[in-house]
Each structure stands twice: as C-alpha cells, then as structure tokens.
C-alpha cells in the first residue's frame, strides 16, 4: 500500500484512465499547462498533449456544453469547473442538458461525462468559494453525485466515474487535497458507486458523514468512546446512488441516527437520509434523529465566524447525546 495525497489521487486516476482509453479527454480553466489552480492535474498536459488536455477560456457554459456534446457523440470527457460554486454559472447545461438528454431522447442518447469540481471550506475563501454544493445536483435525476473524501476513494471513484455511461458530478473537497491516505498498489483500483464504507464500527449510534465531516465525526466518536458510547461512522461516498441499505442496517443495530453535513440544512442530503429512515425504518429508531449542518448559514470570511458556523466534533458529540437522551 502506497501513501498518497488526495491531490495525487486525482491526477493518478485521470492518468490511468487517459492511458487506458483514448476517448478520455480533459479540459477546463488552467488545468493543462499550469496543472490546475489547486495543482491537482500536473503532468497530464505534458504527457497527453494539447489535443487531449485543453486549457479553456473562462466559459463554464461552453466547457460543460462541449463536454455534453462530445460525450453524446462518443468521447468520454472529464471537465473541471474549479470551484464548485461556479457550477451555478452553468446550471442549465448540467441539470437541463446533461441530466435529461437521455430521458428526453427515449434512451437513445447517453452522456458519459465527468464534471469535477472542488467544494467546501478551506479557511477564509469567503461566501462564493467555500460552499458544499452536492444537494444542488441531487435534485436533478440523471446525474450521479460522488463525494469521496480519501485518496483511495477519490482514485477508485474517479476511475469509475470516467467509465460510467451517465453524467457524474465529482465533488472533491478542496480542504482535503493535502490529506494523505493509503491506496492499493495495483493499477486498477475501482470503487463502485452506491457502496457506503463503514469507517468505524459501533453499536450505540450511527453517524453518517462525508468528506471533511468524516474526520469530524471520528473525533467525536473518540470523545464519545471515552464516555462509553460506541459510534458507527458511515461514509456513503456517493449520494446518487445512495447506499441506504448499509445505513438502514446500521440504524437497525444502533437505534440512533445522526447526520453531519458541511452544508445548509434545508434540502440537504442529511434530510434525505433521515426521511428515508423515518419512512422505511421508523421502528428501528429509539431516539430522535439529529442533523448537524450549517443551519441556514452562509460561509463568512471572518475566521471565528467561519469556524463557529462549520460543524465541529463538539457539535457532533452534542447531537449524539441528544439522540441518546430520549
């Protein structure tokens, strides 16, 4: 097992897929010669050349649209939108075009497109460069949504995304690019979509979290273990498809559910998980479900406010205690 960063995992996945399949092309703003503004794609331009790795103008609509058109005509494009917040500029191409072309054509068309972007707080990037945007895309059937948070999951899921015949929204957390983790040495590590990972086993409460919030949940779990409470921490890794089976099985065992999101509460994926559990597994529950989120917050620039708004281990501990109280 080699230890690499999340950053390394992105470029390794793209490199392996571009080497494997000539139809994989990659483009976005400053992704080629400069290696990306987060420096996650260095070397691809040098290795695969300017035909397959292209720097684009600042034109998100044109980027996604070109990705859609190339995908429906046989290429397998990967595109980068840099900050996930900028997906808002091209929401039409994503939610109306990429997501719906297959359905509206009665299944004639397929859109094997991967749209990468970096989301989340990285400390002081302000309100338009820090959001977690996953739920924007969950509301558009036709799109798969990946939210990997370890090098191994980034590597394995990005490769799966490239091979998927559906449009995939691939969200990386920019605050995690430097984080390290083990990845398998063999050349073709794939992680299937829709398969959650049990990060920590425990019998008292189920905590569901993704990306940076997994680390927060694990810290909380350490604290709670000292108090004799054993948490099961689950990372769904993909939100569409969502592995409710693994979550439901865990809740059946623990009777308690807490979700932890670095995102706004209303309409978040936590709300979806909680709703499905209450719809289908209500009798498993022995206490209130609790969501830890940003509430109705907008990420502020100021350090103490940003840190206050973001969920921390103490918020998760409090949520677990609330869930167990009843």
């Amino acid at each position, binding site marked *: 097992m080699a230890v690499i960063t999340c950053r390394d995992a992105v470029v390794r996945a793209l490199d392996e897929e571009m080497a494997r399949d000539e139809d994989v092309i990659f483009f976005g*703003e*400053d992704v080629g*010669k*400069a290696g990306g*503004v987060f420096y996650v794609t260095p070397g691809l331009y040098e290795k695969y050349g300017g035909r397959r790795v292209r*720097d*684009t*103008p*600042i*034109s*998100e*609509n*044109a980027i996604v649209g070109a990705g859609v058109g190339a995908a429906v005509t046989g290429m397998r494009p990967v595109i980068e939108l840099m900050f996930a*917040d*900028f997906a*808002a*500029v091209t929401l039409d191409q994503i939610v109306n075009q990429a997501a719906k072309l297959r359905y509206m054509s009665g299944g004639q068309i397929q859109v094997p497109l991967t749209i990468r972007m970096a989301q989340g707080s*990285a*400390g*002081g*990037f*302000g*309100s*338009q*460069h820090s959001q977690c945007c996953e739920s924007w895309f969950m509301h558009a059937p036709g799109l798969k949504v990946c939210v990997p948070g370890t090098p191994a999951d980034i590597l394995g899921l990005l490769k799966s995304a490239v091979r998927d015949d559906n449009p995939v929204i691939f969200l990386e957390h920019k605050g995690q690019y430097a984080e390290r983790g083990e990845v398998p040495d063999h050349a073709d590590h794939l992680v299937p979509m829709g398969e959650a990972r049990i990060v920590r086993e425990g019998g008292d409460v189920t905590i569901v979290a993704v990306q940076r919030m997994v680390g927060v949940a694990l810290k909380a779990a350490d604290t709670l273990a000292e108090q004799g409470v054993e948490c099961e921490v689950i990372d769904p890794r993909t939100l569409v498809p969502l592995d409710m089976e693994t979550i439901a099985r865990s809740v059946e065992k623990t009777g308690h559910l807490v979700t932890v999101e670095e995102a706004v*509460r*209303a309409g978040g994926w936590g709300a979806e998980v909680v709703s499905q559990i209450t719809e289908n597994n209500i009798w498993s529950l022995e206490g209130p479900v609790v969501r830890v*989120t*940003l*509430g*109705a*917050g*907008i990420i*502020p*620039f*100021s*350090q*103490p*406010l940003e840190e*206050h*708004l973001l969920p921390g281990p103490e918020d998760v501990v409090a949520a677990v205690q609330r869930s167990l109280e009843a």
Partner: protein
Amino acid sequence: MSTSLGAAVRHKMLTNMLLVRHTEERIQELFLENVIRGTTHLCIGQEAVSVAMAEVIDAARGDTVTCTYRGHGHALALGMSLESMMAEMMGKASGCSKGKGGSMHLADLDVGLLGTFAVVGAGLPVTNGAALTAQMRGNGAISISIFGDGTPNIGAWHEAVNLAAVWKLPAVFLCENNRYGEYTPYDDTAPVPNVADRAAAYGIPSVIVDGQDAEAVYPVLLEAADRARAGDGPTLVEALTYRYRGHSRSDPATYRPEGELERWMERDPIDILAGRMQADGQLTAAEFEALREQQRAEVQRVTEWAINEPWPALEETLEDIWVPSGDGAAVGEGA
C-alpha cells in the same frame, strides 16, 4: 492622448496611487504572515485605472461601481476608508462588511461601491441593473463595471453588454487588460487581438487607452460617463495595464516571459504621474518622497490598529442573511 489635469486633482491621484500601492504591498506581507487568510488578488501596477475611474464617479449623485476580487485599489480610490478595508481583510468587526466579506467581497454603498464580485462576469449584469435604476429615476447617475481581459469570454459579459446597448443604459464597461486571466495569456483564450474589438458586435463605441497613465484614462472615462449620462448608452473602455504580482496568493507567476515584468515596471503608473508633476513644477523630489513616506506610515498605522481590532461576535454569524421583518425578527432556521 493625455490631458494634463489641475495640480489638485493630480496630487489626489498620486496620493491615492501611493496609498493603494503601499496597502497592497502590506496586504501581501500580512498574507504571508497569516494575518490575512484565504486568498488575495493584488492590483499593484494597475493603480492608475483605479484613481482615474474614481474621478468620474459621484456617489452623491447615485453613481455606482461593480468590480472584481481584484478590487482593493478601486475601493480605496473611491474613498472607502483604509481602516474599513484593512479591518475587512482581517475579518474584523469594524471592516466594511463586518468581516463577513473579506478580500474578495468589499462593499461600501457610501462611496458607490456595490460590490467586488468574485464570480467572473457577475458584476456586469448588476451594473446594468444599477444603470436601469438611474435610467428609471432620470437622476443622471451612471454605473461602471470593471473587469479583466479574461472576462469577455464568459456569457454573462455578452448578455450584459448586449442588454445595455439595446436599452441604452447609462453604463460604462471598463476592462483592465493586464494580459492574463489567472495563468493564461490573453491571446490563448481570445480570438480577437483587443478586448475593444468586441464592442463592434454590439454597436457600441470602444476606446483603447494607456492604463499606466492616469491622465490618459481619465478623459476617456469622462467622455464615456458623459455619453452615458446623456442617454447615449454604454461605452467599452479597454485600459492596457499589468499586474506586477501573481494572480492571487503566492502565485509566483512563472508563466510570464522573461523581461516582461521589468518592461512594464519601466512604465510605472506612479512614476509616470509623479515625473510629469515634477516636470511641471508641481512636485519636488523631496515632496514625492515625503508623500510616499506619509502613505507608508498611514498604512502601517492602520495595519497595527486593525490587528488589534476585535473579532465580530459569534452571534453575528447568522445575522445579515435576511432583512428583518417589521417586528425585527429574523427569518430562517438557526444553526
């Protein structure tokens, strides 16, 4: 062509350029010292455009400005206090936006600054709206939108310029062409040699001007502003300029060809105006040095002050999202 302005205006422009220069240099240091976090986009080298722009804006009349994350210079030139800006850079309660906006999101309605927009292209449509208000009210106000040379590649730019042209909005579109969008040279992403060439597609006038010379930029903007105020619609102004530093943060700007920076620094906007004032007997070398020292000291004083300013109270985190209803209660859900 440059028109020489009165000594008082020249003095003000020079002073403000020095203020901006020293502020930006200090911001870079503070960023490296971790006092300012996140990211910053400096306008060192581009100061002439800011001070010339500020001369045509009359906030009292209702004039407004939208610009980008590279907006510190514009904010200061428009008259935002250095205290207000420095405190915002550090996320302090006394910042122009109570620390919630930061380097990329300065706003000060008192000086006409509607905002520094961090999503490329977002400012132009908003300037159109401000110009629409002016048109509806008939108050003679204008709105200027400032953006970079990479921005005419985004759809919002074209939609905004088209609408402004069709509605003859009192808007001015001011491009600071500093040759690069992030790490990519202008020519790699644009099919026409000049940003100004784009104006033809919308039937509006355009002007290319030496952006290192405040006295060249000023009359061009004044004419564009007059045209807008007269109801003749928008003008596209392209100011040729250069950023001495990287795009943001600690970008070392290795993508620039050798000697390019040095060539531009030979035409430094501060030196150009100061040199002309000295030649015209309006400024001695000693006075220039004293003015520079004064601005440097002012930046240092305000920096120390801002460092010691309090953080916003944590209760502020969820304030200012909604306009409170009549009874003062906020809308929405708590954290």
